[in-house]
């Protein structure tokens, strides 16, 4: 409790003294750094999220560019996952969760009545913190998405999709002889790559990753990080991570969240070498978090 109070105090303090862009009201604050980009894939303006009465995100403005990897960092409970889940409307399935504001994917409002969340989620895929393969065979895991969206008209096409996806996820060599084995028999790192393959099998434009390596060992983590770098050629990737090093290694831009607010955003190299907001600096230098 006291640490939280400390953080809050520090926050208030910093807004009073150091932060050049802060304002006085509790709601109004300004994100440090350039949150908009030239040709955004996703564009968020004034996003507020509530769980029941409790507000989890405050007035978030953030653009996500084409084919970039953007890392979301910040202490636990600051709303990174919540923000991520706004981008493919995963928050819809949480009872009592309410999202306000404007989020556009390629200029189209994703919370508009016309857009079916089912279609949206095929375009904005998601990889979760804990690998969550379905209790089915490896093949059926990857084929699940293409099947429900009718992406393949026959078995050969489906085989092709499964193979390409597994190849892109760097798993093909390891599993091609046992596609009919249960996916739950794979190692943690393999399972996570399978989940990535499953996600890209649907042909998304954006891939959201919520701490995809936090349940993995360093070697599996390195494999996934390399994979993310390769995937950047085709997909826009938003990754939540707890590891500063990981953010520095894989991302081009970094956004720092704190207590539901987007404090600072900018090029990864700039954020890590020259953070402008004292909160960002504290977090990056490891003074808390």
């Amino acid at each position, binding site marked *: 409790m006291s640490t939280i109070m400390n953080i809050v105090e520090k926050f208030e303090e910093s807004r009073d003294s150091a932060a050049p862009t802060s304002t006085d009201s509790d709601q109004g604050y300004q994100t440090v750094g350039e949150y908009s980009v030239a040709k955004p894939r996703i564009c968020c303006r004034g996003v507020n999220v509530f769980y029941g009465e409790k507000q989890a995100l405050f007035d978030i403005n953030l653009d996500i560019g084409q084919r970039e990897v953007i890392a979301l960092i910040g202490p636990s409970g600051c709303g990174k996952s919540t923000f991520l889940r706004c981008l493919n409307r995963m928050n819809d399935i949480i009872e009592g969760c309410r999202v306000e504001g404007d989020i556009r994917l390629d200029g189209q409002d994703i919370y508009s009545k016309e857009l079916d969340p089912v279609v949206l989620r095929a375009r904005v895929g*998601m990889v979760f913190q804990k690998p969550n393969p379905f209790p*089915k065979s490896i093949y059926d895991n990857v084929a*699940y998405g293409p099947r429900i969206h009718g992406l393949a008209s026959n078995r050969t096409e489906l085989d092709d999709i499964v193979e390409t996806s597994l190849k892109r996820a760097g798993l093909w060599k390891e599993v091609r002889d046992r596609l009919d084995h249960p996916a739950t028999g794979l190692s943690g790192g393999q399972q996570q790559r399978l989940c990535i393959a499953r996600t890209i099998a649907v042909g998304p434009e954006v891939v959201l990753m919520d701490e995809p390596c936090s349940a993995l060992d360093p070697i599996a983590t390195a494999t996934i990080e390399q994979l993310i770098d390769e995937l950047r050629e085709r997909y826009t990737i938003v990754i939540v991570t707890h590891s500063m090093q990981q953010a520095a290694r894989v991302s081009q831009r970094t956004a720092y969240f704190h207590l539901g607010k987007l404090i600072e955003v900018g090029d990864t190299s700039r954020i890590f070498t020259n953070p402008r907001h004292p909160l960002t600096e504290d977090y990056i230098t490891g003074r808390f978090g």
Partner: protein
Amino acid sequence: MQPDTLIWTLSALCAIAFYLGRHRAVQASGGHIRNLHSLPAYYGYYLALCCGLPALLVLCLWLLFDDKLILQLILGQLPEFWRNLPEDRLSLVVNQIHNLIAGEAGIQEVDPAIRAAADHYQRLKTTGYRILAILTLTVATAGLVYGYRRIAPDMRARNTVEKSLRYALILSSTLAIFVTIGIVLSVLFESLRFFSKVPVTEFLFGLKWSPQMAIRPDQVGASGAFGFIPLLTGTLLISGIAMAVATPIGLLSAIYLSEYAKSHTRSIVKPLIEVLAGIPTVVYGFFAALVVAPLLRDFGVQLGLTVSAESALAAGTVMGVMIIPFVSSLTDDALTAVPRSLREGAYGLGATQAETITGVVLPAALPGIVSGLLLAVSRAIGETMIVVMAAGMTAKLTLNPLESVTTITVQIVALLVGDQEFDSPKTLAAFALGLTLFLITLALNLVALHVVRRYREQYE
């Protein structure tokens, strides 16, 4: 001192021992509790155990055997004539003595020798209690002193207490197992007696069940047939109907509750469904007999079918309603055990809610659901009341749900109701039926258990 007073005294002594032990430990630590190996309370428990356990053992042994011992003593003192009676007459005498003591035989004429024996018995009993009290309290005090002197700062009181706790736990679990084994064995032996009178093959493969035996050799007709196939088909028929009713309704309501219902709706509907489980089966029974059966018959008449007044359909339907909450809550458990992450995985790929449920949640929960259904079946097979009231007593070999059939449980009741000879095949047949029933439900439960085991492995 009567045994109950003695037990109270012993408890009080244990309580005192607890405080003494704790106090002693604190004292021995010299005011620094950290010098003690265990927390002071453990020394208290330790002393209470030292004091109470051996004494309790003595008490139990005494109460188990004192009656037999005293009886031996007084029978030995009876006059020659009584002592040489055959076994069964002797037990009558013992009975008479017991009655006299309980004050129930006053009206009858009683032999003075027996009255004297009864008086003697009572005297012995009183002396016995006195000895017992002295013995127990001595043992308790001895234990107390022994334990008290052993308490020292480095004594491992906690380990001793925890070990005794573990033995107590082991004891209770083995007790439960032994009771089960005892029941099974007694049923088994009675069944063996039955099978020595009626061949196993006749019982297992006979197609006719009519357990009426001739009491006198010249009686007509009643020869007794013990083929249990008609009972088995009756049981399976009714359970089948019940499952046909309960499975879809239970499953669908569980899916609705766990996947679709808002938590508010759920908190209202779930208890309402579970109320069904609280209705006594007798109530279901007369509901089946007085409401459902006539309804079915009227309905049948309109369709031009003959539905008997007591039909398998009526009993099965109502039994199905009875096990709906069972199926529904077990399915609900299985569905909610499917991790949230799996659902999110499916939603994240753009699956609709129905696709998520049919494609991911149900397959993942299937083993749990299947084992729940198997448990429900064994419940249905064991159900008696509804069938007695609504499906009749006549054993008919038929698969027509509109006729009256009977089940294994109903026949057990029928065989044992009223005055019975204990060694006639008719009575013993009940045990054989009980054994078969037990084996069937055991097999079902084992299969269910096996399925659940496999199910657990999937998420580890």
